[in-house]
């Protein structure tokens, strides 16, 4: 095991099987540069070592772990309820869906079923969170490629969603809104009409983003067939979420293995055709609209009733193990929980979508130009809190 304590990138790139470039008449030597970890365009603390031939990227190596907080180790020393807030800190942009995944996994372990009203509230909040996550993605992605204005539009609209979260559970980003067995807080009395007001407010705003970017000549140049990845590669590399759907695979956990009342709503799964940055952009824009559709159905048909199932104060799930995954905005987010009958889980393994999607960066970027690396990192929509855990 090599011990390259130096930050010299060449030591890292030993494994990249890059053939010596054919000895050409003008022998331009390769350039190896570090992009990151403090780089304006890497979403968080990601260091990418690029091996360049002039402008073209020959190979990349991602050095991660700068944000590693050892969440899985901590999980082994916390009870199930105490670990709940940690889950929000992983993918801090889509904290609500993290919480949903974890609570449902433990509920499966305890063989407890959340009451229907709690399920509906969970669906509404998760879809709102998906919309907020996609909006943040669009703002920062457009900024990386140079378009400054969408950032302000998307953040203005995201503010509305965060206001609803704040009214509901006091926190805007890492909400810790759900508990094992259902939701802790009953919806505040103006909840339905707030959401309804948002549902009328949002669609024209999404049209605005489309107006700004979809037919923008330079946006097309910068995203059309950049970072293309085929469906076969996606599946082989375990890439999930909008990136997989943009490559043409019509697969969404909300439809394939429905959880938390998703089976009761009808919505389509947008897919792209040739899996390039533009298709991923279109897929995510369409997903925003589908989320709105789900929220509308959920708000109209939200049932009355209790919001918390009967769950023992001190949870001692039976010995056994469970794997439960949900469709987070970035892809398939899975929890593999092993319990040994005590109040503290024996092992919690989190399967983060960003971590696995980032692996595809190398394939998508090879042969592209340096400027495209930024665009591809943006379109992968990775959040380093989730990659490093």
């Amino acid at each position, binding site marked *: *095991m*090599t*011990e*390259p*304590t130096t930050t010299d990138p060449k030591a890292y790139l*030993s*494994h990249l099987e890059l053939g010596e470039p054919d000895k050409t008449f003008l022998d331009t030597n390769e350039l190896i540069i570090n992009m990151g970890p403090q780089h304006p365009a890497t979403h968080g603390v990601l260091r990418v070592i690029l091996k360049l031939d002039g402008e073209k990227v020959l190979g990349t190596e991602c050095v*991660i*772990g700068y944000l*590693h907080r*050892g969440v*899985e*180790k*901590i999980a*082994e*020393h916390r009870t199930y309820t105490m670990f709940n807030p940690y889950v929000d800190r992983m993918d801090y942009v889509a904290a609500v869906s993290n919480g949903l995944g974890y609570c449902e996994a433990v509920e*499966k*372990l305890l*063989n407890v079923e959340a009451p229907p009203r709690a399920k509906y509230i969970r669906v509404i909040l998760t879809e709102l969170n998906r919309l907020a996550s996609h909006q943040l993605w669009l703002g920062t992605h457009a900024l990386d490629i140079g378009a400054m204005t969408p950032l302000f539009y998307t953040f203005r609209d995201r503010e509305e969603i965060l206001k609803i979260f704040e009214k509901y559970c006091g926190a805007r980003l890492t909400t810790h809104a759900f508990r094992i067995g259902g939701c802790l807080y009953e919806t505040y009395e103006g909840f339905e009409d707030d959401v309804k007001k948002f549902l009328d407010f949002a669609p024209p705003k999404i049209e605005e983003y489309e107006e700004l970017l979809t037919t923008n000549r330079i946006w097309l140049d910068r995203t059309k067939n950049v970072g293309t990845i085929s469906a076969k590669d996606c*599946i*082989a*590399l*375990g*890439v999930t979420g909008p990136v997989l759907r943009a490559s043409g*695979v019509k*697969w969404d956990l909300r439809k*394939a*293995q429905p959880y938390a009342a998703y089976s009761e709503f009808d919505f389509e799964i947008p897919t792209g055709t040739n899996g390039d940055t533009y298709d991923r952009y279109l897929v995510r824009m369409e997903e925003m609209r589908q989320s709105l559709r789900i929220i509308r159905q959920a708000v109209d048909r939200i049932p009355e009733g209790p919001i918390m199932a009967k769950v023992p104060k001190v949870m001692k799930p039976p010995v*056994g*193990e*469970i*794997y439960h*995954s949900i469709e987070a905005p970035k892809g*398939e987010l*899975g929890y*593999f929980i*092993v319990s040994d009958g005590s109040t503290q889980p*024996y*092992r919690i*393994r989190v*399967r983060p979508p960003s*971590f*696995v999607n980032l*692996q595809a960066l190398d394939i998508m970027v090879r042969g592209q130009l340096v400027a495209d690396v930024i665009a591809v990192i943006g379109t992968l929509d990775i959040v380093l809190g989730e990659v*490093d*855990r």
Partner: protein
Amino acid sequence: MVSKLKGRHGTGIREASSYLGQNYMVVESSIITDVLQVLRDQEQFDYCVDVTALHYPNRERQFDVIWILYSFPRNERIRVKTMIADGETLPSSVSIWPTANWLEREVYDMFGIRFDGHPDLKRILLPDGWKGYPLRKDYGIIQQDQEWVQINLGIESGQ
């Protein structure tokens, strides 16, 4: 599907049952790669969701290595588990699913289980010079690689 596998490998398949509706298989570590290969080719488990490990310190074969697989055509999940002792190595499954590359690197980083045949087995999350494997049960929660912290960060101790 399990009977077909049992026919091929006889005693290799220790146990195949399901818990809470999720079926899993425990397989002898020596034949793990062909089982995975069969699962991927014949049984269309083309998507390797996750590779992870468990540490039971007081068992003679301490580590459980678990592959969580999913098949798109059959919309079905399965977990394949194998038990190995400390210091034993496992053949890497990167050739079957490229996604296992980073997942196995993380298992190595956290548990110290080596996968031979892995293209680039080195730490992925922890800094390279780090000694010790955190997710092992005997690795205390506040314990830290003091020496690495002193050299690289130049501070007395992390806490």
